[in-house]
């Protein structure tokens, strides 16, 4: 049996290492390791809870803003603050836009090169590529001249022998099976998507000042003041028109480029509906409402849990049933590593016991990662787009049900195909399509509210810390692009006593627990075929289908931070 190591896994956020045991030409066992640790929650201790979001946002710059949102919600939950509808809607627009942009970038820039052979595109007939593109979409850039231009650019790159970001890849690998014309179309759209994403994300600059790390969240609302008649209000009719243009463009790009590309490429790789199945347990905290976060019945993404691929039952989600294990993680619990701990009791002391660098292999029988192992009712769970579509489908959410049924009908396949590597890709595309429609609606809702004189954006009742009780604690959650995200905050006096984040990639990329149950990545890699051990393209396919984000996934709390000291205010 051969041990394969892939480190770094590129085209993800952060530092991920996969070790896999090969038997024959399939994976017999696998271990997922996060190899970077920062300790942001340690740093948050003793600071002003109103600014926790500014710090927590820096957990990740790819899923930027998702931690800001979970953080303000956690503090609002602790202090019992309801935000005005406009603030909720602006947050929905910002978060929904993040999901749209993130999923498109994931498909083209982080995942496509596992399926698309760039060099093969040189052999394509631009005329046939144009016919193909025109047959699947009305997107205007589809002429033979356009595709010839793209092909010439790729040819110039290859001829220069300076392949830039495409250097040393697995070009020509036998697992690449797309015809040259499909490859050329995908390469063209890789470049188009690069242009589109930076234009679209200007929506975060309008509503957040900049991206990454927009800067307009507040505990109690948003700093995006509304006024139809003020030229310097952040939301006025001029800016509403910019938002309208951007979201309409996004909807068009998703409908005319992203979705048709997924539909065109997937049939070639139908085999991948069989691989990468994983755990079969799915968790969704639920999110996206114009009303109160305390009323999950109104969520666009329904809250719930599905066990063992059983779509007949959606179990209610109980936040008290979340625990984290560290028996395979580089931390120690002072009272022993044999039990999991709820985030409220989360104590974490980093203690590296891995090999001294430089090293060749991790000691996977012992501790082997900076990620903890979260469990729900003791079970490992998958979170993310697939979990949202599975839970939403099982719960009968109309938009999700229609989207999933449409896909299954087109494929002439049962829902079981979703539980796979390709199923994750399809689920991501489906929810992007669903979200695009809602983001358009939220912009109109905001415009209507504003023009009817409903301009409240902030609830000031609890801004002054003297209005807070002696202590409180809150749970803030968000369905981030990569899945269920939870922040737990414990406030004492006017500062943070304890802070914990359990994030999507901790759920998906975490290690084994005390019962030896694998995490979602580890489980999904079992039985994945590997044609060439020195070019494990297939590992990349399944791991990338989860869209890993390791910076998010590693966290710790405890130890002494700087006390929150009140400066001399005039």
């Amino acid at each position: 049996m051969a041990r394969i190591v892939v480190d770094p896994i590129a085209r993800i956020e952060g530092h991920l290492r996969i070790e896999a045991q090969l038997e024959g030409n399939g994976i017999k066992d696998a271990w997922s390791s996060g190899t970077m640790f920062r300790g942001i929650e340690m740093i948050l201790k003793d600071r002003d809870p109103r600014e926790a979001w500014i710090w927590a946002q820096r957990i990740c710059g790819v899923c930027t803003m998702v931690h800001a949102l979970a953080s303000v919600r956690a503090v609002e939950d602790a202090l019992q603050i309801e935000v005005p509808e406009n603030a909720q809607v602006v947050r929905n627009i910002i978060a929904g836009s993040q999901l749209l942009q993130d999923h498109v970038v994931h498909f083209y820039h982080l995942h496509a090169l596992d399926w698309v052979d760039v060099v093969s595109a040189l052999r394509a007939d631009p005329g046939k590529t144009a016919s193909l593109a025109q047959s699947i979409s009305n997107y205007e850039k589809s002429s033979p001249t356009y595709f010839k231009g793209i092909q010439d650019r790729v040819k110039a790159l290859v001829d220069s022998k300076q392949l830039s970001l495409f250097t040393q890849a697995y070009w020509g690998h036998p697992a690449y099976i797309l015809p040259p014309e499909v490859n050329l179309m995908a390469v063209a759209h890789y470049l188009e998507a690069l242009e589109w994403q930076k234009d679209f994300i200007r929506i975060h600059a309008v509503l957040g000042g900049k991206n990454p790390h927009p800067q307009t969240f507040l505990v109690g609302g948003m700093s995006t003041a509304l006024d139809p008649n003020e030229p310097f209000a952040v939301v006025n009719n001029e800016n509403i028109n910019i938002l309208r243009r951007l979201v309409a463009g996004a909807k068009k790009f998703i409908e005319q480029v992203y979705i048709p590309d997924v539909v065109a490429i997937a049939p070639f790789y139908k085999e991948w509906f069989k691989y990468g199945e994983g755990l079969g347990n799915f968790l969704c905290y639920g999110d996206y409402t114009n009303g109160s976060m305390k009323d999950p019945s109104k969520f666009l993404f329904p809250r719930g849990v599905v066990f063992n691929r059983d779509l007949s039952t959606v179990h209610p989600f109980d936040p008290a049933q979340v625990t984290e294990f560290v028996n395979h993680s580089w931390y120690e619990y002072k009272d022993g590593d044999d039990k999991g701990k709820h985030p409220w009791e989360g104590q974490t002391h980093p203690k590296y016991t891995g090999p001294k660098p430089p090293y060749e292999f991790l000691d996977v029988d012992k501790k082997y990662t900076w990620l903890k192992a979260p469990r729900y009712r003791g079970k490992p769970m998958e979170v993310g787009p697939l979990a949202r579509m599975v839970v939403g489908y099982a719960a009968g959410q109309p938009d999700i049900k229609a989207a999933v049924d449409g896909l299954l009908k087109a494929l002439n396949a049962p829902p079981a195909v979703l539980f796979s590597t390709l199923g994750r890709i399809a689920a991501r595309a489906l929810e992007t399509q669903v979200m695009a429609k809602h983001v358009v609606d939220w912009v109109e809702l905001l415009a209507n509210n504003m023009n009817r004189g409903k301009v409240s954006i902030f609830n000031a009742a609890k801004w002054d810390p003297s209005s807070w009780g002696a202590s409180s604690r809150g749970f803030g959650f968000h369905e981030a692009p990569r899945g269920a995200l939870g922040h737990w905050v414990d406030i004492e006096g006017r500062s943070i006593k304890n802070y914990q984040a359990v994030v999507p990639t901790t759920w998906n990329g975490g290690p084994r627990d005390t019962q030896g149950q694998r995490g979602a990545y580890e489980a999904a890699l079992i039985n994945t075929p590997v044609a060439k051990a020195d070019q494990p393209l297939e590992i990349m396919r399944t791991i990338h289908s989860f869209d890993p984000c390791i910076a998010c996934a590693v966290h710790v709390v405890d130890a002494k931070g700087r006390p929150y000291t009140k400066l001399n205010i005039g």
Partner: protein
Amino acid sequence: MLPSQMDLTGALQESGISRRKILKFCSAMVATLALPDRYLAQVTAAVSKPKKPTLVWLQFQDCTGCSESMLRSSSPDVADVVLDILSWEYHEVVMAASGKQADAALERVVKEEKGKYLVIVEGSIPTAEGGIYCTIGGRTALDIATEVCKNAAATIAVGACAWDGGLVRSTPNPTGAVGVGEAVPGIKLINMPGCPHNPVNTAAVLVHYLTFGDLPAVDQYNRPLFAYGRVIHDQCERRAHFDAGRFVTEWGDDGHRKGWCLYKMGCKGPQATFNCPTAMWNDHTSWPIRAGHGCIACASPRFWDTKSPFYDRLPSVPGFGVEVTAGQIGLGLVGATIAGVTAHGLINIGLRPRTRPSEEAVEAKPAPKKEN
């Protein structure tokens, strides 16, 4: 020496970018760097060479926000950089290769392009416990940074973390994180702080290097003066409101809707040096103060520890009312008084800077109060 017009056109055609597009980009860069227009031809020639200079981008204790910021750049378009201007051969978040093949790509650059390639570093470098808090391919970040930066022509540290350890280094600095300058002393280095860095500035540094073979002029923190030489408060579009004593006093209040000064809401603009108000973000779309939230001084030294609490008002910013000389606080930082005097002067002589509110608003506001 400048190439002849013929050579230049040929080189541009070969690179696949239209002349119009590349001139537009170069003009933007010349403006960002505050170079005289006569340098345009030289800049254009420098970014159009058939053999492209090699760039590698290292990520350590980062959030990838600085990479993402670069991917949001329109000046230049990322696709143009990747395909035409530089040979961008290592960057984990976007490169095609992984594992051994990724290692091989980096190794080739360090060996074969020794002393000639540029390296961008993102994220801090942990030094505690032998550097085990960040490893890539089984090697520590410190080990990799030392090898790659020492063999490079120059290192560009992007973002607060790569500059001085940033958020990761803030109290209690659990991992012994430091910036590149401290982790690998003695290298040719320029710092591009910010959280994240602004890609327009970083592109300008790259272009400056390609054009003149050297890094632009820097301050005592190795930050380029063109981007970090002026105080935000002095360039701020809301400065007139500060001078006139018109402040936001509660989020969402009347003044907030009118775009008044955010000083009382904790804005750190008077203590921040950066070119946000002019360079702005995301294709010149906006910046945090325009979006209604105070500045957190993210390009200032150790800002996470020194500028938080972010919602507490700076204790002693002098200068309320039009009779007080503007820019005094900035004087203490970098001595950049020109912008402040200019904004101030415009108001005094009755011109209307674009931030000035309506006449009614001015009249409705009571006389400025003296505070502190």
